[in-house]
């Protein structure tokens, strides 16, 4: 029982990193990134491949973040020219192309068979083994990430993110290089997603392309929408709620015949919740910041 709880906590910690990255982009900067999962996947694949080939965990962690961040920086060049739903859709396209690459570049990724046997995190001669170890290590990293993002959001940089979210035109009219700033937000969010992906790979020890689909994107979007209005802490809390619900159901003693439909029914519930949250947000008059076209 305690192991179930620890497992849920660990998964939540991983997804919280993933969600905080998206909250920074959507909630603070107005970048509706529907392809966030690509960077979660990139982090996971990069670190899995590196460590399987003998690169030490810490080195691999840094390299993987660098790879994901670098790719976000490059992708930002063309895609950040877009805004609003078009930006979101182009990122979604990028994420699907990445997934196809994980699937098709089998010489590197073993394609649909995935990468098994990813080593547990180890550093300075110490290897993380038991669930409590993971919970503490990942919790610590989440805390660090939280402090980092919190500091950024409350700084002049965070203020200018909020300004861009409210009205990008005004921000340029007062001399802000909004392209650069939006890219900074994209890259920071990506680093958090990639960190989540790395931690995921080394906890689950097996990854495959089906871990990084549109479903994960919608899940994390649901988390962010659920936590919206309460900033970064809101998305962390929302993560524990949603993941707790998702993973918790798996351990209910359900009859075999029912088990087959648990997952889809759960996803249906998520879909409904997302719809209801959006409708509530609209009633509260939120989500207006993103209306760029004006006449």
């Amino acid at each position, binding site marked *: 029982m305690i192991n179930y709880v620890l497992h849920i906590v660990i998964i939540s910690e991983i997804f919280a990193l993933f969600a905080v990255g998206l909250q920074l982009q959507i909630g603070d900067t107005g970048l*509706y990134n529907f392809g966030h999962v690509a960077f979660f996947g990139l982090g996971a694949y990069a670190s899995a491949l590196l460590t399987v080939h003998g690169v030490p965990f810490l080195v691999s962690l840094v390299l993987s973040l660098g790879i994901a961040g670098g790719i976000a920086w490059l992708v930002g060049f*063309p*895609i950040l*020219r*877009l*805004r*609003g*739903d*078009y930006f*979101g*859709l*182009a990122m979604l*396209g*990028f994420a*699907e*192309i990445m997934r*196809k690459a994980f*699937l*098709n570049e089998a010489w590197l990724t073993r394609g649909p068979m995935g990468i098994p046997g990813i080593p547990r995190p180890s550093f300075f001669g110490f290897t993380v083994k038991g669930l409590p170890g993971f919970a503490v290590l990942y919790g610590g990293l989440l805390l660090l990430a939280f402090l980092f993002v919190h500091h950024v959001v409350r700084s002049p940089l965070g203020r200018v993110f909020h300004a861009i979210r409210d009205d990008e*035109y005004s921000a340029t009219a007062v001399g802000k290089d909004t392209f650069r700033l939006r890219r900074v937000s994209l890259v920071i969010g990506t680093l958090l997603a990639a960190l989540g992906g790395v931690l995921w790979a080394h906890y689950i020890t097996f990854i495959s392309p089906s871990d990084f689909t*549109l*479903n994960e994107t*919608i899940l994390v*979007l649901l988390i962010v*929408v659920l936590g919206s209005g309460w900033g970064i802490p809101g998305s962390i809390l929302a993560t524990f709620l949603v993941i707790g619900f998702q993973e918790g159901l798996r351990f209910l003693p359900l009859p075999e015949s029912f088990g*087959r*439909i648990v*997952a*889809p*029914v759960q*996803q*249906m519930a*998520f*879909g*409904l*919740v*997302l*719809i209801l949250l*959006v*409708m509530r*947000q*609209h009633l509260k008059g939120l*989500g*207006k910041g*993103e*209306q*760029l*076209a*004006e*006449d």
Partner: protein
Amino acid sequence: MTLILQSLLDGLIAGSIYALFATGLTLIYGTLHFINFAHGELIMAGAYLAYLFMIPPLSFSPFLSAGLAVLGIIGLALLMDKAVFRPLRNASPLLLLIASLGISLFLQNLAQAVWGAEIRTFPFSLERGLSFGPVVITRVQITILFVAAATILFLYLLLKFTRAGKAIRGVSDNPRLAETFGVESEKIIRNVWILAAALAAVGGVLYAADTNLEPHMGIINLVRAFAAVLLGGTGNVWGALIGGFVIGLSENLGVLILPLGYKDAIAFFIIIILLLFRPEGILGTRWGVR
């Protein structure tokens, strides 16, 4: 050479189906100004509904099943609009998009809960193909081409000659007109949903007849449709129609040079490239300052 001819033919057939998806999606985009992610699920649900009528115990004929499926999907679309999109009428396009993502997730998993995740096919007997020299076309494919052409002709006549059709085109060609239409606009929106749903359902049945059915078939077809919409210029019905054929052809010709596994990524490539390099038609109007 044969390979190219065969690919052209396959591309044409696929394109005629995508054209149905795309015209429906662009009508919605033109009138309601958001990307309806659940359009793919209207396609998927149309195929499954027809399947339900075709298999025992009902065992209806394919045409009757398709007709009933169209009616069912029109109902579904109107329900979606009434429950979700109407209350959100003036919301930002992003909120609408996210809400439609929620609907998409819901319907996909509903299908999976009912029918399971496995791939199914319509219970047609496998008819032998007719061959024209080295190029092969099946009876089913010929039927698909006919039905698609008839649907497009029907759409053309509807939009061109009926009062309701002209009103729809008026709104989708010129968003400002929406204000002019005033009270009429809810009626126009309803007609647009009916039309878009019917196109999605017919297309979904044809697609399933050409390939197969599975609960997640909606998403890739939404992407194809959206690529076609962008190609044609958002809100432009005939543009989307041509866009659909372009996507069908580029997928089937594209795999001649790309690995087969990337076939489904072609529409995404097209979307990204279009979004980036058509700043006037697509972006210019969206990001206008005052």
